[in-house]
């Protein structure tokens, strides 16, 4: 913008400058308002998580008066299940993240670089599956993870092949279907396609095979993209609700979101404790978000512009 207020030459010009400024103030006010709105729920949650249980609806709403740490003490000390839920959430999210990033990078690399039979067939299936809503496979996926598609297994002569994993109420039941997915593979394929292949070719010339090249050269140089996918995956797994809700049954196995929801049903009057728990669930993601902010922004920008 070369427009400055110091040298208005004509009246028309001055008027444009005035409207330009007015518009800027309006936009700024709008942004500030939405920012306040975005912060408000978390701010109030934080404030009231430091107020006594009895004061859960009592003003003042802007500051934790009277101040107490009781809710956090309840969570970390008295209420044994809570640390377990945190641990379960961490375990499930970390394992899913590691596997999904590795498997999606492998498949994406193959789709971008290696020639193999039926490649375009599988890739088109992958693209179609991305448009398929998740609910439609929910019931069969549940049966596969749990009791099996066919009760008692598939009978082939004397052979009985189980059709389900029997992983209900087991963290691996949550992990298994999340270990690879179409979106991640698509994202990595697009990335490797746009990536110069000279470095890999040099390595292949030097006699390291596909696998050696992949683990020693390709993975390290695609670090940024892998971190982006890892963050998206971790966030998704950490906050996931519907699938763990179906798979996990006993309170000891719950993840944090399932646990918080269950806690609310059991101890409705202790809402301040729920608020403290909510802070606990949000904090790790917030920290990760602040540390890796540019990766988050990158990933979102990428999802938008690549697929239009």
């Amino acid at each position, binding site marked *: 913008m070369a427009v400055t207020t110091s040298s208005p030459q004509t009246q028309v010009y001055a008027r444009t400058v005035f*409207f330009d400024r007015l518009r*800027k103030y309006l936009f700024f006010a*709008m*942004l500030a308002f939405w*920012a306040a*709105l*975005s*912060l408000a*729920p*978390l701010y*109030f949650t934080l404030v009231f998580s430091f107020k006594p249980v009895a004061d*859960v609806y009592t003003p003042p709403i802007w500051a934790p008066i009277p101040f107490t740490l009781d809710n956090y003490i309840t969570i970390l000390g008295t209420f044994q299940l809570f640390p377990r839920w945190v641990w379960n959430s961490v375990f499930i999210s970390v394992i899913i993240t590691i*596997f999904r990033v590795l*498997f*999606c990078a492998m498949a994406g*690399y*193959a*789709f971008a670089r*290696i*020639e*193999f*039979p039926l*490649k375009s067939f599988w890739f088109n*299936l*992958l693209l179609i*599956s991305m448009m*398929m*809503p998740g*609910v*439609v*496979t*929910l*019931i069969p*996926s*549940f*049966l*596969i993870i749990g*009791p099996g*598609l066919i009760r008692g297994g598939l009978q082939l002569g004397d052979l009985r092949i189980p059709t389900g994993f029997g992983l209900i109420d087991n963290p691996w039941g949550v992990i298994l279907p999340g*270990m*690879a997915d*179409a979106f991640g593979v698509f994202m990595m394929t697009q990335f490797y396609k746009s990536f110069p292949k000279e470095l890999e070719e040099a390595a292949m010339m030097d006699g390291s095979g*596909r*696998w050696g090249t*992949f683990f020693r050269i390709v993975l390290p140089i695609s670090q940024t993209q892998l971190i982006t996918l890892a963050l998206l995956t971790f966030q998704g797994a*950490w*906050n996931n*609700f519907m699938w763990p*809700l179906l798979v996990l049954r006993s309170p000891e196995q719950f993840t944090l*979101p*399932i646990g*918080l*929801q269950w806690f609310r049903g059991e101890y409705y009057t202790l809402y301040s404790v*729920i608020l403290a728990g*909510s802070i606990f669930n*949000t904090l790790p993601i917030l920290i990760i*978000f602040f540390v890796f902010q540019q990766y988050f*922004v990158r990933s979102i*920008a990428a999802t*938008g512009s690549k697929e239009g």
Partner: protein
Amino acid sequence: MRTRTDRRKWVDALNGYLFISPWLIIFIIFSLISLGYAVYLSFTEYNLLRPPRWWGLEGYQRVLEDELFIAKALPNTFKYVLIVVPIQTFLSLVLAFAMDQNLRFQRFFRTIFYLPSVTSSVVISLIFIWLFAPQGIFNQITGLTVNWLDDPRTAFYVIMGMNIFTTSGTLMLIFLAGLQDIPLAVYEAAEIDGANGLQKFFYITVPMLRPVIFFVVTVGVIGCFQVFDQIFVMTNGGPLDSTTTITYLIYKWAFRDTRIQMGQASALAVILTLIILAVTLLQRRVIEGSGSGAER
């Protein structure tokens, strides 16, 4: 020489399949087989206790005759999509446009706007239950005495508002990336021709952003048709079924009701998939057909 290229081809084929195998196995089990089985189940009666019993279109007919589906879940779902998608799309576009003016604190705003979407749907729902309780902070600030989530006239709108609130930040970032791709020269040319701000917005920004708008609307439609977490946590489909949506009904039939009906629930899941597919295609027509300037 020929044998060497043959061998190379063979090695590539093997390696290719080894590289995609982890994904492929999961894809075949949890997408292909699952989808096929869902379609099969939709033609059966299945209550988990006895093996599925084939009954053809009976399940579909029962879905279409179900009072809860016809009178509540179906209209509620469409109402939800028709209210949430346009508002969140427009709101995030306007916010992105404001962000693109290079005002001060841009980075700060970007961070803050994204905050609601990093919070889990359950946590944000739990917070909103508390904020919108009869003695909650929302009523305290506004001086109202509405029992938001227990009143069939208001509960659904609170959920809609909350979801607009949580997704607009992400969508805004998508739009912002799209806006920054529009070459400045186009705006400058329009300025020389005497276009004002509003004209620039509607005649340059919106048409140039058409692919991004299509993406945001598609993601919004697919997501909104499947809204579940928030409803499960905040209202359980109530009060008086005023917040029961199709996905919640699928869950209810398949997992929650005392008489489990996985076949009928699968039929509804197939119907929902067809609805989403139809709406996505229709909307693609509308967005791409409404102008000639579709870029990508």
